[in-house]
């Protein structure tokens, strides 16, 4: 049976709307949803009723479903990655705090100490250089920890890459201590 142009248009729009569902969901239920929409349109047409109200209701109802399914995917993603997200946040906060100390606090402290004892100021500046080298190692270790978390997210926790990241963290720590 030839479709009325308006019905065909609604079906096309509905088909396009379904593209907003998450891919896995669309692949599983998209065809069935389209069929159901078509069945309802056909039923309405056979009853000689207009399609506008039905189509409007279906579009609104399906849009709510799209929001719900996408929100579910996002929530699952956050739940699965919750622990690593928390650790990333902690690493970022530590990095910001360390950077703030290096940029603002440390130079001021060194300048004050150098002003008090101008004769041995070179020793204090040497200490500053040492502190910055330590800080560089610390930031490098944080960066490696960040990389390690991304390997965990990609299910590569027990790979050569993660072992290398852990080795870099260990070397940074040992160099800092020695």
């Amino acid at each position: 049976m030839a479709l009325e142009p308006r019905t065909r248009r609604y079906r096309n729009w509905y088909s396009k709307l379904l593209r907003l569902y998450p891919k896995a969901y669309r692949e599983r239920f998209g065809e069935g949803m389209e069929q159901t929409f078509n069945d309802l349109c056909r039923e309405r047409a056979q009853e000689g009723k207009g399609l506008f109200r039905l189509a409007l209701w279906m579009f609104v109802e399906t849009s709510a479903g799209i929001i719900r399914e996408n929100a579910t995917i996002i929530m699952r993603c956050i739940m699965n990655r919750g622990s690593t997200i928390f650790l990333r946040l902690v690493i970022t906060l530590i990095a910001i705090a360390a950077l703030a100390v290096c940029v603002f606090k440390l130079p001021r402290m060194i300048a004050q100490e150098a002003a008090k004892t101008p004769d041995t100021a070179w020793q204090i500046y040497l200490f500053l250089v040492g502190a910055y080298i330590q800080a560089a190692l610390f930031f490098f270790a944080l960066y490696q920890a960040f990389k390690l978390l991304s390997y965990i997210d990609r299910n590569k926790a027990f790979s050569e890459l993660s072992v290398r990241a852990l080795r870099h963290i260990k070397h940074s720590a040992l160099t800092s201590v020695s």
Partner: protein
Amino acid sequence: MSKNTPNTPLTPAVLHILLALSTEERHGYGIMKEVDADSQGKVKMGPGTLYGSIGRMIEAGLIRESDKKVDPEMDDERRVYYRITGIGQKSLAAELERYREVVAVARRKQLA
């Protein structure tokens, strides 16, 4: 979603879908029509709610996909049918028992 146990309360949409599938396998449109008939037109379920619920019910083990078939009353494409599982039947029975208990309480209090 983890597997449902019969003690897990069901949402109205899930209850209606299980009721619709309790007598025979149905496709999406068939479920919708049955829910409409069971509720005498009071429950209107669109494809968004229906297929969202179907997805969660499959994950919970309440229903499963049956083979693709052609509906003899519908001329066209092959369709996915859904059928209730053993867990689904137990969950439905437990939910109906809960409803019976609530109605019994309401009767005792002369509210129904």
